């Protein structure tokens, strides 16, 4: 049977191994997005609304960190979390928790940088009106984040896309342990090198479909929000 037909069969039969891998990938990346949003959005908003010496350098640095190589993030976290490392006591190396942390580090800069841009643009529009209403610093931040909520979906999406697609960081800190820390991307890398192309292709197809579906949903939300909130 040709490889691509076997791949289709694995998907249609809801192969348990395949489903477990998909499920782990999704939960790790979604947890990373949630964590990165909680950290990155306030950072981005704060950076958009404050002026201090060295701010420009920080903005450039943040933008540059959007392209952080996953293997480097993986390596850095590996050194921190390995038994002899400063955070070795936690004992989370080669667990899904470590993978969530690695992906979080990877996408905080993306979410923070895109949030900064969005909030800064909105601030130009809102500045006078909020000033006339005497809105304080914290109020400005929360108001702008809330009013930019639909635009910020794009930032979350970019973060999720990056987290779900990367191999290097989860491979290093997760260890690609069968049934425990094996994600779609690490499985594709492994199965391809083993020559098990049907599973690799099946996973690859699912990964693409997931990314497409999430983008379509986000697009739909934006169009809907434009209609509903103007």
């Amino acid at each position, binding site marked *: 049977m040709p490889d691509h037909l076997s791949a289709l069969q694995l998907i249609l039969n809801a192969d348990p191994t395949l489903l477990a891998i998909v499920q782990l990938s999704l939960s790790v990346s979604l947890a990373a997005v949630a964590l990165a949003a909680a950290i990155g959005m306030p950072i981005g908003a704060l950076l958009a609304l404050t002026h201090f010496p060295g701010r420009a350098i920080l903005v450039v640095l943040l933008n540059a960190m959007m392209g952080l190589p996953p293997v480097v993030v993986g390596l850095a976290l590996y050194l921190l979390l390995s038994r002899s490392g400063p955070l070795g006591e936690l004992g989370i190396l080669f667990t899904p928790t470590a993978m969530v942390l690695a992906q979080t580090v990877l996408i905080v800069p993306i979410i923070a940088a895109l949030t900064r841009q969005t909030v800064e643009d909105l601030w130009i*529009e*809102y500045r*006078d*009106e909020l*000033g*006339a*209403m*005497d*809105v304080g610093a914290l*109020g400005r931040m929360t*108001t702008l984040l*809330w*009013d930019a*909520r639909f635009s910020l979906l794009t930032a979350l999406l970019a973060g999720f896309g990056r987290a779900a697609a990367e191999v290097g960081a989860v491979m290093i800190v997760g260890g690609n342990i069968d049934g425990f820390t094996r994600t779609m991307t690490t499985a594709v890398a492994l199965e391809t090198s083993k020559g098990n192309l049907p599973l690799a292709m099946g996973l690859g197809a699912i990964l693409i479909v997931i990314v497409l579906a999430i983008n379509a949903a986000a697009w739909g939300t934006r169009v809907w929000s434009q209609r*509903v*909130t*103007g």
Partner: protein
Amino acid sequence: MRAPVSDLPLVLDDVSLQAGATAILDRISLTIAPGAPTLFIGPNGSGKTSLLRLCMGLAKPTGGRISWGGRSDPTPTRRAFVFQRPVMLRRTAAANVTYALAQAGEPRARRGERAVALLERVGLADLADRPARLLSGGEQQRLALARALARDPQILLLDEPTASLDPAATRAVEEIVLSAAQSGIKIAMASHDLGQVRRLAGEVVFLARGALCERAAASDFFDHPSTPEARAFLRGDLVI
């Protein structure tokens, strides 16, 4: 609790505003006290908007001093501003008013009730649940007025609030402004529509080239303008 402070009288003492080498406002001294509406008029570029922004505390003068009820702290306690093009928050009309009430320190328990009353006051009760950004220009401006009135202001500053509105919407806005004035709120409003100035003004402040040319009761100003600039402006000549 709102502190028992007052924003009136609003006193400008020798106030100037420079942008680079350009003088936008030139040594203006002016006291705005409770009373009939004060209308700021003058050609485009005469400094009306800048003057109102300084009065609101949205900008700092480059020269001179401004005080509100004797305080020089520009925090807007009992004053509110309506912009020519108001920015609607991306939420419902009611939520826009509730937001303004929250910022003005209204206790949470009373916000809903007051928001309903304010929306009724500006004739938008039926549109309370409509997203604010989907309202028409006139409705948005009335919502901006509701937000401003939510601050329970002593003085309401308005920067050409009807400049981009049709006559019916303009009338609705003017009626709200007049009723606010009748309830004791001091109105300070810029306009370049002389008909509107006749309809609303108790007194007129005429600006040209960033300077205060003339200040007079509205009837005096229209009957006997005392400066050549004001006479030219009333004739419909270009005042440069």
